[in-house]
């Protein structure tokens, strides 16, 4: 999915390749909302990964070494926890995602070699889980801030690819 975006002349030092970067309001919204998630990383992560593997079966190719790829299985739960804990960490590094996620980017680029298109896929499934778990708090305003944040995380993870 390609976005066409308005190029606005500003006097800030913003990196010209930044697309739709996070405003102060976005960051505050994400931090406030994510406080609800802390402590639930395993359940939320498990559900998000389960959905990704079910709804987008092509993503299973990255987990061919697992014994069991069914929703809620032990490896799915463990991986969901790993990924979601990393997202919690990314929230704490929201002011410098590129720097903060450097080693994770190297991992994804050189070792895992996950096609970056899949970051968007996982993000979508995470948003679905958040809508289910927090039906009242996951308002449209929170949704847009979270969507932007996850896109920024994806960009930071893609940094080292080429």
């Amino acid at each position, binding site marked *: 999915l390609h976005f066409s975006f308005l190029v606005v002349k500003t006097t800030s030092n913003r990196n010209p390749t930044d697309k739709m970067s996070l405003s102060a309001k976005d960051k505050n919204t994400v931090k406030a909302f994510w406080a609800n998630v802390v402590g639930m990383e395993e359940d939320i992560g498990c559900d998000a990964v389960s959905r990704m593997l079910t709804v987008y079966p092509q993503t299973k190719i990255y987990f061919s070494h697992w014994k069991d790829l069914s929703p809620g299985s032990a490896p799915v739960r463990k991986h969901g926890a790993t990924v979601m804990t990393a997202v919690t960490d990314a929230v704490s590094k929201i002011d410098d995602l590129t720097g903060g996620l450097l080693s994770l980017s190297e991992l994804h680029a050189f070792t895992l070699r996950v096609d970056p298109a899949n970051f968007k896929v996982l993000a979508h499934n995470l948003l*679905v889980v958040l*809508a289910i778990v927090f039906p009242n708090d996951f308002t449209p305003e929170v949704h847009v801030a979270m969507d932007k944040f996850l896109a920024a995380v994806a960009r930071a993870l893609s940094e080292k690819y080429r």
Partner: protein
Amino acid sequence: MVEWSETERSIITNIFSNLDYNDIGPKALVRCLIVYPWTQRYFASFGNLYNAEAISNNPQVAAHGIRVLHGLDRALKNMDNIKATYAELSVLHSEKLHVDPDNFKLLSDCLTIVVAGKMGSAFTPEIQATFQKFLAVVVSALGRQYH
């Protein structure tokens, strides 16, 4: 042609028979206009879309959301021929409304999230897969007549 199992057909039928169109329609369109603000380009005549609150309270947005959601009824009734069913609407969106077909996916993602929020954990991974398959077929059909 798209194949639908009996399970998939009943999942889709159940979702829509329990759907409150007057609630879900507006919510989906409101969410789309807020999360993907460039989609507001098609609604210049709808008045106040200046911020999330204005969009959420805009009666034209609400009415239009209901209308768009009912647009899915034709797919529901013609699941074995969705492509042909939407040919006319596809031409309309291309020739008259000039809607970028990428936007259909954006609205469909918002609808998925709104339905998930409404159904809660009853919106299982399997049901999500079927619902998204259904929407993907509609989205594809709506983009078919663009040239």
